[in-house]
């Protein structure tokens, strides 16, 4: 482990589910790193240097070489530090893991965001509908597995941290029912398993400040109408 451990930095913000994905991977593998907290309203020179294309977090910097995009970072971490693998070894299983992680990014995250943080009523309803559709698909994919990765959490579970921790917060803020035990019993059970997992719970940001942040965002949006 020592040879690969030279210098690992993570540029991020505390409330970001995408940053959290990376932190989970680093924690799982026992990789020490320096967390550089960014202010997205006042981006650092370092961030602009390391992610000139998107200027977003997370950015992982390993021995001065930057890697951007959370799912790309996860794969890099898995390939560089071999202990506690995140992706399966079988190519077909890997393809499935990549497919579902992409599905989460493309179909769940944006829909859930739209369901909560859009001013237009019609758009919001559309967001709720799309969220339910996407979560239904994941419910059916999970079946009776403890985690998407099987007995232990893997690539898809990490990608889905947004669902397990962030959706319950934002749905409460907006008074919506997106992820409930009635609608999606398997997914709900998974979310509880996941957020209480010893590795995961140490990495999740504190709930109350995050709730307050989203509540303020939501109320400002409603006021702007």
């Amino acid at each position, binding site marked *: 482990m020592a040879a690969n451990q030279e210098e690992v930095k993570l540029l991020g913000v505390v409330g970001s589910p995408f940053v959290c994905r990376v932190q989970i991977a680093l924690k799982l593998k026992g990789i020490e790193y320096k967390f550089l907290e960014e202010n997205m309203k006042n981006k650092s020179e370092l961030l602009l240097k390391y992610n000139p294309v998107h200027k977003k977090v997370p950015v992982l910097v390993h021995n001065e070489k930057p890697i951007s995009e959370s799912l*790309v970072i996860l794969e890099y971490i898995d390939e560089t530090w071999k202990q506690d693998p995140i992706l399966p070894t079988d190519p077909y299983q890997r393809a499935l893991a990549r497919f579902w992680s992409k599905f989460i990014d493309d179909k769940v995250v944006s829909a859930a965001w739209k369901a909560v943080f859009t001013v237009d009523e019609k758009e919001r309803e559309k967001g709720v509908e799309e969220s339910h559709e996407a979560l239904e698909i994941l419910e059916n994919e999970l079946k009776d597995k403890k985690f998407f990765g099987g007995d232990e959490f893997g690539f898809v579970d990490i990608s889905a941290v947004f669902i397990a921790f962030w959706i319950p917060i934002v749905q409460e803020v907006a008074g919506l029912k997106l992820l409930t035990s009635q609608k999606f019993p398997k997914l709900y059970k998974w979310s509880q398993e996941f957020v209480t997992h010893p590795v995961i719970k140490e990495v999740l940001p504190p709930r109350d400040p995050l709730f307050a942040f989203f509540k303020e965002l939501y109320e400002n949006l409603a006021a702007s109408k």
Partner: protein
Amino acid sequence: MAQTDLKLLGGWFSPFALRVQIALNLKGLDYELIEETLNPKSDLLLQSNPVYNKIPVLLHADKPICESAVIVEYIDETWTNAPSILPSNAYDRANARFWSTYIDDKWFTPMKSLLMAEDDEAKKALFGQMEEALERMEDAFNKASEGKPFFGGDTIGLIDIAFGSFLSWLSVIEEMNGRKVLDVAKNPALAQWAETFAADPAVKGILPETLKLLEFANALKLKWAAEAAKAK
């Protein structure tokens, strides 16, 4: 090398299906190409890709793999003969995946919108986005290729496949709008790369002809316009 257990649900017009064909050709694999018209979508397609109902789908011994980037990586990991589609070094692999995603987000999105756009102001903005993306890709090419013909170096790699699969559609957009987007003056390295890519044996026979694609695009635009008019 008779490989009877590979089927590709594709379409001659689809840049995403083209990516998979290029990858299969690079690895020297035989496969059955099933041309989908998408009108209607075949039962096999609906069964194989229940989530998106989209092409391409690769069926390997009847196991479906969906999403072009996922399929290309699957091919590279399953058939490990040369050439490698992804680089061997982890950092370079991350770079390849980064640019592959960038192409889908920042190149394809304005390109698709341009196809549908009627408004001159909107078109101007979209051309601007495409030109910005090209500048970034030119820079990425110079860094990744290290003087060699492809993003992947001596042989076609992931970024080449992701980007090159759009070349015919780019010609269509240029033709429809009477203007060059990939300009040898502004993007000399990419202009050269585009020629080299199109001439590569893994690509040459399967690029759709610009005129045929132009006809297809015009018909598609009419279809969308009719649907939009009906919706009003």
